[in-house]
């Protein structure tokens, strides 16, 4: 993992912390050999030795009788050339030099009181041991000569406050300063403090930190309150290369050693974590270190890309090791998956680790990981696809079916027939088959036996069609009767004018009726009380000369015996039947139930619910209520998803198990009929504004409790009985409003 010479003993280094106790720290600096760290804050100023597995406090510099504001540090820096020399910037504007070689307890060497306001930053020259720079809230940068102990030069930044100063690497004469007005300035110490040789605006709002890349020439990073870290190439002009969007205002930034694109950052507010970013991946940190409880204030790399130290407002110093970092990107979901139920479509976003060649690849994509994880990190791109997977996802639901199916208003047999045709026309053969079979089963339905011969009256509205008979579901027609048979039978019926054909199976008679056009009363009767024609305890084929085909359990003998007399008398049919040997009832509900359960299990709740709905008025299938509710719920949701609200309402109304749904989301507001003021619950039916009870009877002027009737034209009404009486003699409104309510 660790390359040799990167300093520190990375293999053995571990994350560790030290509690400063005395207060939060504002900054920290490492000694030249990385063995010690100095931590400074308003109330803390300590030197800690960095041991293998802990920090050890070596020196407390905050000692002496006179602990004035000079000890209150904003920034601290350890000389690179003289390991005994430390400089701090104090909140009172003092720049203080400390000499560790002093034998006294107090190590204070010299105080430069040149700045008027807080010093934000102090920095030693990388090669000149006697040059020190300081940036201050007073808007100036001062250059101190440590030999003469005075400020040699003052650079006026023309802004309120200088937040950071940094020497250019490999350049002994230039430095940058960043200030609260968002600008970055480059100065040449040889040219004096009048004017910077380059100024550019880097951020909208204050810039709090800047750092030159240690290896890349002319590469400067800046961090500001606008929650951005920006990377610039600075030559004669500054050009923006990258912009990282951070979670919070950027406090401190520091390039990661030996890594071209990595930079560490701390936040000024909100975010307590220290993040390391890849400048090419501007939205998610490459690594995050979440040890601190409060925002980190200082960050410094321990001469190794794998170890760094940070200090925080939570009064701790941490040594972070890269192996303990969290990698937010690795936690991130690299794919997205969305299912569009309505269109039967899947949308998928996938991450590819291709470099910028964003040509849409041919599907399927295979991208085996080749680059290392670190290198891959910045190359993540998402491709977004949609797949048609319609049939597979929507199996069992067809919008067309939902729209066209007829579920109520006709006899179950007719409905089955209609729906079967719809299904067939949509090429849904298996569903059509279910409908057909259901219809056939319906024809065979056996109801409670009526114990004696009866007569019934059948109203036949059109005199020229005398042969219409109630399509009594009585026959065990397990197979289709061919069209030929039907035609034959209908002509036969017409010619014979005999109603005795009624028992010849619904399939036939129904077709006959449909061709005849009119609808018949008996179809309604059928759902009500049991008609005498259903008195057969067994099914018959009574049509002479055309015994049913493929009827396994219906012998011709039955047919012959089935009819005794059938008479047609002036629009009134009298039927008379004689019992024959009972044939055991065929229990089909179980088979249908199984079929429906199968469809539901296959995801086709549509067929299950629709067939059940059609059968519901005549047959109660042995389906658990709970299961049925679930089917209906699922189907209703499907309808709603497809905005088929009318169809959903039909299902809710007629399914019988979800009646409460139609009462949901219905709210009504009551207001006074006179003034329109909404009635509060507290007042009952008393209008505050009119000072009268509302809903008064227009006739008796008493308040109506219970049923009230009113005119939709004028809004007046009253007790139903009173109104009835009134309107038997009047046409106008009883209130006298002049509205002609009863026209």
């Amino acid at each position, binding site marked *: 993992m660790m390359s040799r010479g990167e300093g520190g003993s990375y293999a053995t280094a571990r994350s560790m912390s030290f509690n400063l106790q005395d207060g939060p720290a504002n900054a920290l600096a490492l000694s030249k050999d990385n063995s010690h760290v100095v931590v400074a804050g308003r109330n803390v100023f300590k030197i800690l030795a960095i041991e293998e597995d802990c920090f050890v406090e070596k020196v407390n510099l905050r000692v002496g009788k006179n602990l004035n504001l000079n000890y209150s540090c904003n920034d601290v820096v350890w000389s690179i050339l003289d390991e005994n020399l430390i400089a701090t910037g104090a909140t009172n504007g003092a720049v203080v030099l400390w000499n560790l070689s002093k034998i006294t307890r107090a190590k204070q060497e010299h105080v430069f009181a040149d700045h008027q306001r807080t010093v934000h930053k102090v920095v030693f020259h990388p090669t000149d041991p006697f040059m020190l720079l300081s940036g201050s809230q007073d808007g100036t940068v001062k250059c101190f000569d440590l030999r003469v102990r005075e400020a040699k030069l003052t650079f006026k930044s023309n802004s309120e406050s200088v937040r950071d100063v940094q020497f250019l690497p490999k350049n002994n004469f230039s430095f940058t300063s960043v200030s609260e007005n968002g600008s970055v300035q480059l100065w040449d110490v040889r040219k004096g403090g009048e004017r910077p040789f380059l100024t550019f605006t880097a951020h909208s709002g204050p810039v709090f930190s800047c750092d030159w890349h240690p290896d890349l020439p002319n590469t400067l990073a800046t961090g500001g309150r606008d929650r951005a870290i920006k990377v610039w190439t600075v030559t004669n002009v500054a050009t923006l290369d990258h912009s990282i969007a951070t979670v919070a205002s950027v406090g401190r930034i520091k390039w990661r050693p030996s890594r071209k694109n990595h930079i560490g950052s701390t936040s000024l507010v909100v975010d307590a974590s220290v993040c390391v970013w890849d400048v090419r991946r501007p939205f*998610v940190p490459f690594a995050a270190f979440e040890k601190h409880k409060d925002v980190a204030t200082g960050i410094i790399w321990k001469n190794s890309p794998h170890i760094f130290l940070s200090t925080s407002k939570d009064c701790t110093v941490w040594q972070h090791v890269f192996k303990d970092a969290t990698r937010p990107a690795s936690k991130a*979901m690299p794919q*997205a998956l969305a299912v569009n139920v309505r269109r039967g479509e899947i949308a998928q976003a996938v991450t590819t680790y291709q470099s910028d060649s964003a040509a849409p690849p041919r599907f399927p994509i295979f991208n085996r990981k080749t680059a290392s994880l670190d290198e891959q990190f910045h190359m*993540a791109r998402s491709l*977004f696809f949609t*797949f048609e997977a319609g049939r*597979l996802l929507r199996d069992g639901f067809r919008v067309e079916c939902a729209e066209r199916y007829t579920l109520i208003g006709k006899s179950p047999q007719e409905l089955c027939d209609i729906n079967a045709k719809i299904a067939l026309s949509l090429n849904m053969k298996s569903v059509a088959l279910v409908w057909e079979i259901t219809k056939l089963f319906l024809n065979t339905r056996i109801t409670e036996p009526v114990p004696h011969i009866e007569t019934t009256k059948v109203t036949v509205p059109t005199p020229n069609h005398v042969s219409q008979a109630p399509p009594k579901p009585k026959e065990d027609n397990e197979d289709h009767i061919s069209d030929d048979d039907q035609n034959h039978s209908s002509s036969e019926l017409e010619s014979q004018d005999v109603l005795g054909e009624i028992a010849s199976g619904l399939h036939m008679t129904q077709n006959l009726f449909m061709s005849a056009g009119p609808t018949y009363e008996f179809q309604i009767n059928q759902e009500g009380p049991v008609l005498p024609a259903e008195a057969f305890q067994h099914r018959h084929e009574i049509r002479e000369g055309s015994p049913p085909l493929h009827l396994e359990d219906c012998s011709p003998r039955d047919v012959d015996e089935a009819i005794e007399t059938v008479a047609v008398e002036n629009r009134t049919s009298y039927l008379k039947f004689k019992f024959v040997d009972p044939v055991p009832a065929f229990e089909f509900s179980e088979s249908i139930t199984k079929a429906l359960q199968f469809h539901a299990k296959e*995801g086709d709740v549509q067929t299950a619910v629709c067939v059940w709905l059609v059968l519901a008025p005549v047959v109660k299938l042995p389906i658990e209520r709970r*299961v049925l509710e679930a089917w209906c719920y699922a189907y209703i949701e499907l309808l709603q998803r497809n905005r088929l609200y009318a169809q959903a309402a039909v299902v809710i109304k007629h399914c019988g198990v*979800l009646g409460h749904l139609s009462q949901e989301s219905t709210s009504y507001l009551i207001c006074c009929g006179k003034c329109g003021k909404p009635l509060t619950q507290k007042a009952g039916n008393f209008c505050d504004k009119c000072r009268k009870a509302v809903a008064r009877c227009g006739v008796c002027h008493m308040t109506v409790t219970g049923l009230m009737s009113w005119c939709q034209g004028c809004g007046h009404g009253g007790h139903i009985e009173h109104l009835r009486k009134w309107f038997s003699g009047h046409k106008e409104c009883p209130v006298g409003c002049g509205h002609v309510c009863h026209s």
Partner: protein
Amino acid sequence: MSSSTAFTVATVDTGHEDMIHDAQMDFLGTKLATCSCDKTVRVFDVNINHGSQTFVAELKGHEGPVWQVAWAHPRYDTLLASCSYDRKVIIWKETTEIKPDGKKVVKWDASFVYEGHDSSVNSVCWAPPEWGLMLACGSSDSSITVLSYVNDRWVASKIPNAHTLGCNAVSWAPAQAPSFDKTNEVQPVKRFASGGCDNLVKIWREENDQWLEEVKLEGHSDWVRDVAWSPAAGLTRMKIASSSQDRRVIIWTNKESDGISWTPEPLHVFDDVVWHVSWNFVGDVLAVSGGDNQVSLWKKRETDSWECISDSSKSCIQNEQRTL
């Protein structure tokens, strides 16, 4: 049925500048929301006939990568919840403004921002509409928050230490109808499942306004990345699909419908991390999206084994059963 069907593929330019972490269709299938590392959520209108997407709005408000989005049921207006690395959950509301010239202007505003989590919020999921407006949020701070809209206010109910190391996914159980059958009256129970970095799937049940851990499902050997409670629970049985970094998808079935005894059934061992699982609307087809960037559809056969009925890579027929 083992013949796999090839997909028709269309590429969509979402306009995101970085990785897309989540995409969700709304209830009616007419809106698509995507969220990305680039801190934005983008909303598209989906043409229901051609399936083409039209960009509608970019929702800016998060300060970190947005991990997940979720559409509320349309009966509560057009609401979209999003959660982010910035520890926030934002509930966006669409409002339509009609300009004097008759033009409709669609606006998206943050109607509520929840900032009660201490770490990245990884997952959001709306409860079934029967429970009202209710949102579960799973976070890396190991807690889960259930936000509910009561008396025009959002009220947060926190489950601390739901998953040590963090919660990655939450998914609600469908609402079961309050049964009118007097003999067998079942009180509707609010439940949701969560998956986390502790390799566990947990099921939570509301009792006296408190969320209790009902059951802990152990079966995965690495982070659980997604959980999906099958819709229409009563249709068959309660089922939960969970996918994990251990490359497996497990289907948990509750045979007794008591919510307590769950039987694991391995769906398949994939070649790579399985990121997403998603049921179709009746809960009989499971879409699985894995680290190999493929989508496959799985369906339970009569023989009770799960079969891959379709795969986005044409060559794939993965219907052999492997043991765990």
